[in-house]
């Protein structure tokens, strides 16, 4: 089915789970509406099939985690072997391979520790930075996302002269129930890609900082790339002021290459956090990697990092398989994935222009996003609600026509993306952009 899918079974199933599951979903942000989630029954390659028998091209990829594609046989064999051998022990004989692969490919990974979630491992990285520097505060940037913990979610600055984030009504990344003053007591918040503000801030506050947190490419803020020299400046200032530079590579991770965005961009942070795709998409694994002099705070047991399932066999087997598959033949699968993703982006852009819908796709293929405007966004803080609204209209139209887009408008390909998938995409994109253009014109004017 290609248009106006029937979703009656999905709706009925949603009703059933909602009786016990709050909102009928396993995660939520403070967005002002509810979409009925699709419940899937199977997947192969880049395609998924839902309870109603509708087929979809999966560019959602579970927030980017599904990098190997559904039912990747080599990956499934590796997981099956691990399950047959040993499931629940603290250390197993997959560890060394997984650790050495990350150490070999990721520039900052002199040492590696595994965890389970991005939220949790990011807090471990902050703890390491505080222990290393003896300082408390960290700096993060507007519209970046670093997990679901009280001290890093949303917020806004009231006084630019003292840029501490505070709660505000209408923050879609905010939450009720946050510990009082946890953001203002621990952190600062600045706009990203603003070198002047960054330098001024460091002159005043640099010596109080334990860490700077940044996505190396701001995927969460609209797939915005760093302006030339911005990350170099950040690296220089962190070194000058003795601040731990932390790259959050949760999304960029292996999607841009097995060395992460840091290898692509040529900037080596002191610590980095990984998750999502490093486990191939089937099992949760996260990692904090970094300089030996910082990571040895774990060796000396000065910094605690605990967790029942840290380094569990299925997770390390998944990391080993993922890095082996994606690094093979000079990362041939990833290069092909990027080439096809670029072709897919071209199709969407051409179809949008055909119907007169302003549209730009930005960010490197693998982590790119579309925006319903004529020119790329330069700063994450420019991604306002009106543009989000337009992007949501196109993303929901794409879903109605059988193409799943990750929030808000990200397109995550996988290593099995094929030429057949591009053929599947083109007519659906054509119908979706035509429908979206009409809705956008209705709401915002032509």
């Amino acid at each position, binding site marked *: 089915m290609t248009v106006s899918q029937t979703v009656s079974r999905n709706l009925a199933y949603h009703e059933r789970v909602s009786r016990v599951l709050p909102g009928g979903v396993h995660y939520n942000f403070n*967005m*002002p509406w509810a979409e009925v989630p699709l419940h899937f029954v199977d997947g192969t390659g880049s395609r998924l099939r839902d309870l109603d028998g509708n087929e979809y091209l999966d560019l959602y990829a579970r927030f980017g985690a599904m990098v190997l594609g559904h039912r990747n046989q080599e990956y499934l064999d590796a997981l099956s072997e691990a399950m047959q051998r040993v499931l629940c022990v603290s250390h197993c004989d997959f560890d060394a391979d997984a650790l050495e692969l990350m150490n070999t490919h990721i520039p900052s990974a002199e040492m590696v520790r595994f965890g389970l979630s991005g939220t949790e491992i990011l807090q471990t990285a902050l703890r390491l930075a505080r222990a290393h520097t003896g300082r408390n505060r960290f700096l993060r940037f507007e519209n970046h996302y670093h997990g679901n913990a009280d001290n890093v979610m949303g917020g806004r600055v009231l006084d630019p002269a003292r840029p501490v984030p505070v709660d505000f*009504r*209408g923050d879609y990344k905010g939450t009720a129930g946050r510990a009082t003053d946890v953001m203002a007591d621990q952190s600062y918040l600045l706009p990203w890609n603003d070198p002047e503000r960054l330098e001024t801030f460091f002159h005043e506050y640099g010596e109080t900082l334990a860490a700077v947190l940044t996505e190396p490419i701001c995927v969460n803020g609209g797939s915005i790339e760093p302006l030339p020299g911005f990350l170099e400046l950040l690296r220089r200032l962190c070194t000058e002021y003795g601040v731990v530079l932390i790259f959050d590579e949760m999304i960029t991770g292996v999607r841009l290459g097995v060395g992460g965005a840091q290898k692509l961009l040529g900037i080596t942070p002191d610590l980095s956090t990984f998750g999502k795709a490093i486990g191939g998409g089937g099992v949760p694994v996260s990692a904090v990697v970094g300089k030996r002099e910082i990571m040895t705070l774990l060796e000396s047991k000065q910094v605690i990092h605990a967790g029942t399932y840290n380094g569990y066999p299925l997770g390390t087997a998944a990391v080993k398989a993922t890095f082996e598959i994606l690094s093979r033949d000079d990362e041939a699968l990833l290069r092909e994935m990027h080439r096809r993703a670029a072709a897919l982006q071209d199709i969407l852009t051409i179809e949008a222009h055909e119907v007169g819908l302003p549209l730009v796709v930005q960010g490197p293929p693998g982590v790119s996003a579309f925006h319903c405007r004529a020119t790329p966004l330069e700063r994450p803080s420019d991604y306002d609600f009106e543009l989000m*609204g337009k992007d*949501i*209209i196109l993303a*929901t139209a794409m879903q109605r026509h059988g193409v799943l887009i990750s929030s808000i408008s990200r397109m995550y390909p996988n290593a099995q993306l094929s030429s057949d998938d591009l053929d599947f995409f083109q007519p659906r994109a054509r119908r979706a952009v035509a429908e979206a253009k009409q809705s956008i014109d*209705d*709401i915002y004017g032509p």
Partner: protein
Amino acid sequence: MNKETIRTVLLQEISTEIAIPPADIDDQASFMRLGVSSVQALKIISRLRKQLDLDINPVALFEFKTVDDISEYLAEEAAA
């Protein structure tokens, strides 16, 4: 603009989107319970902005539990 006027405009806009007469909309229900989708919500917000001539933060708007609460919030915003 007072709360009652805003409430009438809001119910009319919701009615247009979800095809239920304004009188039949439960003004103690949340938008989510009324089944307002993302695109419908964007349409309602856009029309409210124009009709009320207010710069509305859409997330704030929908943080309120009921149509009645939203009307009260918008009346306060209009008066500010």
